[in-house]
């Protein structure tokens, strides 16, 4: 067990996979100098410019080329820098990568990983702050991962690289510096398996990415007043760990979903709707979601903060849910 930052964990995942498999390579702008966040630091030195490939500013071609390279049996890891810029490559991801295997009747595989950093980060405003995991969850053919810890970034990025289908791996920009224990040796977090990071009997709180940490803070806070929240870090958004979530809610009778993405048509809707469909009779309180307001993210701090979900709001929602129980 060593300690790594979330960013270092990603470097290790990619480095180890590139050492293991010569057909793994990475492609994106500026990654030869370590990438915009340093998440490729040292890799071009080790693997050279043919495997840590700098590119023109051509997002559509980066993604499209990765599809082609995957079809001939290599495993490209695509860097999109900010998930917002992936919007320049959506045809390539959604019409080409995601549908290839199916539409050609299983002749091809597209084992690519797209790294799309998400989340609010340092006054980045409307075009550098989006979290669109719900979009990709809606697209047949895609796997979607969103790690919250260094260990999970290591384990999920490794799993993503080994996956034979396209994976959208959404790292959170605000977590790059987060340090945490990371297992030694080969560490794979299976796709589709959530992690119960705090057990609790009163409320099931499902979340992922940066809001995992805010949720834990909130859970500690409400625990001091006797409300025990079970915090589930979903980790993989698609396929989401329905079984684990339903089991938990079957016990607690209460569901809160928390995500940073816009609440309206966010992935919380899928989870809340599924729980309401499956466990209606066992719910002790209505399902509940916390998500961003349906507004773009603004630059100025007081405006940006309106978008942000603070632990206090999460705690409040937990209390309200627990209180509904009593009623």
């Amino acid at each position, binding site marked *: 067990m060593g300690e790594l930052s979330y960013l270092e964990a990603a470097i290790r995942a990619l480095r180890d996979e590139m050492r293991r498999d010569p057909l793994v390579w990475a492609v994106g702008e500026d990654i030869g100098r370590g990438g915009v966040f340093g998440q490729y630091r040292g890799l071009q030195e080790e693997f050279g410019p043919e495997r840590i490939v700098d590119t023109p500013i051509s997002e559509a071609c980066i993604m499209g080329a*990765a599809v082609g390279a995957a079809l*001939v049996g290599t495993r490209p890891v695509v860097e999109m820098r900010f998930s917002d810029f992936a919007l320049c490559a959506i045809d390539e991801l959604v019409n*080409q990568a995601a549908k290839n295997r199916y539409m*050609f*009747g299983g002749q091809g595989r597209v084992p690519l990983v797209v790294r799309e950093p998400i989340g609010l980060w340092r006054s980045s405003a409307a075009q550098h702050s989006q979290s669109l995991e719900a979009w990709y969850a809606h697209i047949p053919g895609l*796997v979607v991962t969103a790690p919250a810890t260094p260990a999970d970034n290591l384990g999920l990025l490794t799993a993503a690289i080994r996956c034979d289908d396209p994976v959208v791996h959404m790292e959170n920009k605000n977590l790059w510096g987060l340090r945490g224990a990371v297992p030694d040796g080969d560490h794979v977090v299976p796709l589709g398996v959530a992690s119960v990071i705090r057990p609790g009997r009163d409320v099931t709180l499902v979340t992922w990415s940066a809001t995992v940490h805010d949720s834990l803070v909130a859970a500690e806070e409400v625990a001091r007043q006797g409300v025990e929240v079970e915090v589930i870090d979903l980790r993989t958004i698609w*396929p989401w760990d329905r079984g684990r979530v339903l089991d938990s809610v079957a016990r607690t009778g209460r569901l809160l979903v928390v995500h940073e993405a816009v609440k309206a048509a966010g992935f919380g809707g899928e989870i809340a709707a599924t729980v309401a469909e499956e466990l209606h009779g066992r719910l002790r309180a209505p399902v509940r979601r916390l998500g961003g307001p349906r507004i773009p993210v603004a630059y100025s701090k007081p405006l940006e903060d309106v978008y942000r979900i603070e632990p206090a709001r999460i705690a409040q929602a937990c209390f309200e849910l627990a209180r509904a129980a009593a009623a």
Partner: protein
Amino acid sequence: MVASQTNRENSAPRLLDLYRTMVRIRAFELACEAAHKEGKVTGAVHLSIGQEAAPTGVCSNLRRDDVIASTHRGHGHTLAKGAAAETMMAELYGRATGCCGGKGGSMHIADFSVGMLGANGVVGAGIPIIVGAAQGLRLRGSDAIAVGFFGDGATNRGPFYEGLNWAAAFGLPVLFVCEDNGWAATTRTTSMSGGPGIAARAEALGVPTTVVDGNDVEAVDEAAASLIAEVRGGGGPRFLLCETYRLKGHTVHDAAPYRDPREVEERWTRDPLRRARDRLLALGVGAAEIERLEAEEEALIAAASASAEAAPWPLPAAAFDDVQDNGGAAWAN
């Protein structure tokens, strides 16, 4: 840009092969058109009639392990790359035995076993894909090359531009083949394009370009042979611009009223099959031999159609196969 030179000694056997492929494509397309009228083939179908020479001349110079990407108008490329008419026709009939198991249809025809990496429903989308395939092949240490086919209309899309620049910047083993048939659906491409033309654009991106009469299969063959040798030799990307014409509507549903009938009529006189046939006769190949070849190919396609019609439909359950390993079928709702 280099104008292609012709040097056609002892060319009859070669031309017979090329003609056979073109006849196969034409017969396939006519069968497909007829089957569509009868409702046996459905959806949007884009025929290659009149454009048989480019796929034929190019693919006749490729190895089986070379890969190609195609367009919405992909039957010709697929046949020329060596796919079996039978599994292709079964695909168009939507049958389980089709090359895509019935999932693709005309717009997603593909045969990976012969290096045909797929038609595409999105104009221009094959270009970045084929460029990346070239990059992947190089990374694997293969000397196979990649060929991207596309139409004139596609040259106004960003991915065309990004793809050519990419290939040039990385010196990738790609041959770009533009079939310039003058039209993009109902629009004359030149009316929507700035500058001196497609060749100038490719050259400005660092991709040496050759312009060829795309209805002269020997000219295409010859130009492709030398460009492919350059590409395979590590010379970086090349561009082959084939001037051709779509003799039918944009899709089988399109009567193409937007075109001057005289333009179409004049173009029929330059039908690549007719030209190759005339040239075979001029080279001394006997009419009987030509007719036998034609009959063989027509029989092959007729058999493909009959076999497609007799083939089983896919089972509904197959709709859940090949979505993805994680979160696919098990998650069906």
